[in-house]
């Protein structure tokens, strides 16, 4: 799965009776590729555009620009019937296991839906695959003919995962699948996801705001801020030696077992910008303690530095305006 210069634009209305029309771009020119068999985590705060990016890759929202390739085919050019047949190979697990599963269907009907949707007709095969998916996620066969409300949050998320993996997908988007779960249940789901991924060799795009979870699950991490990827590298590079000032600030705010490291000492100011009111130049410049003139004038591109990719003028000296001096 890969994307080139992917953008998503939403129209928003504001003002008196929605008289003011504006466009916001929660995903703005993102290049991304998820390699075969890897887990890539997109980490970001609320409103960073990370979920929209996941939806756009699966064409659950229509990108306004850019192209998405899946197994070498441009999915923007596929007919809707072709796309539907492809769906079972690119799946998603949603954040909220309460609202994303149909309460009126039996679990077996929820889980088998991607197979039927992609045109599978053979009842025997559908049943066999469904039963296998349900057992893979650790639910008993009795779950098949129950309704979703009979399950706890953790078990519901297992049902959501079973639905995603039933068609042996090559690519799965996991949109914060554990953020509504208690820690002890989260541990069960994370281990389950790791086992399923290594067992199937599928690629996962994991969307998260939780650094510890991202670290535990990913091969590579992409940090997203205000619709852009600002840093991308192996999990170890990004977490052990963050380069972008935002990644550094973000990591310093994460509470850890080391309670002598106080997040309350961190002096990070302000909130992430609103998409209707983005700062000019680098989008982090309004909160960055290293920002200099160039940062407010020009948008830094994601370019290689220190073995990974960073979008920050601190590391791309050759791009620096000779007139600008670091403050």
């Amino acid at each position, binding site marked *: 799965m890969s994307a080139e210069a992917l953008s998503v634009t939403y129209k928003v209305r504001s003002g008196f009776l929605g008289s003011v029309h504006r466009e916001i771009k929660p995903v703005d020119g993102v290049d991304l590729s998820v390699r075969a068999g890897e887990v890539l985590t997109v980490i970001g*705060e609320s409103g960073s555009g990370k979920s929209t990016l996941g939806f756009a890759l699966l064409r659950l929202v229509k990108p306004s620009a850019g192209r998405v390739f899946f197994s070498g085919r441009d999915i923007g050019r596929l007919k809707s019937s072709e796309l539907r047949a492809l769906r079972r190979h690119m799946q998603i697990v949603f954040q909220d296991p309460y609202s994303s599963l149909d309460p009126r269907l039996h679990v077996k009907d929820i889980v088998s839906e991607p197979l039927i949707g992609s045109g599978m007709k053979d009842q025997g095969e559908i049943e066999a695959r469904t039963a296998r998916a349900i057992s893979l996620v650790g639910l008993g066969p009795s779950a098949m003919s129950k309704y979703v409300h009979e399950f706890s949050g953790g078990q519901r998320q297992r049902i959501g995962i079973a639905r995603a993996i039933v068609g042996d997908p090559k690519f799965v988007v996991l949109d914060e699948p554990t953020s509504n779960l208690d820690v*002890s249940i989260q541990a069960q789901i994370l281990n389950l996801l790791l086992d399923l991924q290594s067992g199937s060799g599928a690629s996962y795009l994991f969307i998260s705001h939780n650094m510890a979870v991202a670290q535990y699950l990913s091969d590579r991490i992409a940090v997203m801020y205000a619709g852009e990827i600002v840093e991308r590298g192996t999990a170890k590079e990004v977490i052990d030696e963050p380069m972008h000032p935002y990644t550094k600030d973000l990591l310093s705010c994460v509470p850890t077992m080391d309670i002598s490291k*106080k997040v309350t000492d961190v002096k990070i100011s302000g*909130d992430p910008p609103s998409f209707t009111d983005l700062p000019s130049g680098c989008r982090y410049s309004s909160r960055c303690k290293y920002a200099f003139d160039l940062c407010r004038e020009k948008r830094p591109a994601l370019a290689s530095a220190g073995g990974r990719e960073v979008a920050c003028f601190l590391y791309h000296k050759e791009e620096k305006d000779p007139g600008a001096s670091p403050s």
Partner: protein
Amino acid sequence: MTDALKVSGLWVDYRTKSAWASAVRGVDLTVREGEVVGVVGESGSGKSSVALAIMKLLPANAKARGRVEVLGKDMVGLPGKDAHRYRGSGMTMIFQEPMTSLNPVMRVSEQLSEAVVSRAEHYKLEMFRYDSVAVPGGPDPRLSIPQGRPAPPPKEAIEALHQVRIGDPERAAAKYPHELSGGERQRVMIAMSFLLRPRVLVADEPTTALDVTTQAQVLSLLLGLSRDEGTAIIFVSHDILVVGQVAQRVAVMYAGEIVELGPTEAVLKNPLHPYTRGLIASIPSGFKGGKRIEQIPGAPPDIMRLPSGCKFNPRCKFAMDRCRAEETALKELEDDHFVACHLY
């Protein structure tokens, strides 16, 4: 230091269709002036019921038993209509979702002004008199409540917004809650606490809905409140690492009981109860391909169908016959470090 809050033998029972179920089963906890005590537990552990019982804000189908003394006054026995006199400058609460605790049709400035007025009202009650803090100057502070059109917010309200590091306090004061971001709303709630100068603050998952960068800011504000004003804070959370950032002592709750209580560092570094150990071991750490995180099997029990003996025994790998037969009680094992487990 004196105890600002003393909870002893607290039970909270909820009436259901068929029977009464106990969400909190015999909790003892004290919070001293200027101290932050964390209460950690998963959903259904009873931690929020403890918070609501302290504030006397339990829903109508719930009943508290035992004693909850706020500044020496028992809340459980207090008639409901009198409780409001203690809320505000006596005790105040911050909820997880600030939108539900702010009035959507009042401007931020009006709501903050209310806090100033409410504090002035409390000074009339002997028990809330502060000798060190002057009653805000000028005429009757009630005059500062804007009537009809929004009046300029009192200086104190703007200062409080500035204190909680809201970018442009004047602009934020003129807004309605829905026009603010989640982090700004939670900071308005904390600004309100600054204005009220409560003796006891109950914070129920105050940062759960916030991003980590905002969370760090809010935690540091709460710490400031306890340090500078001597506010006793009870910090309820599902996240033991967040609690570790602010609390001097931590209580771990499971199925309505405190199973472990001790200094934060001792509980985090040397957890004694198998549940606390499991909780800490299940926090993801390390990189992919490294050590697998341990998982606690099963799920927390339904309070309608609690197991006999220790409530954790069906999920505990150390469970013995005694654990299934005999209830546990908190025992002091190390200095100030208590655990309720038959292993010790």
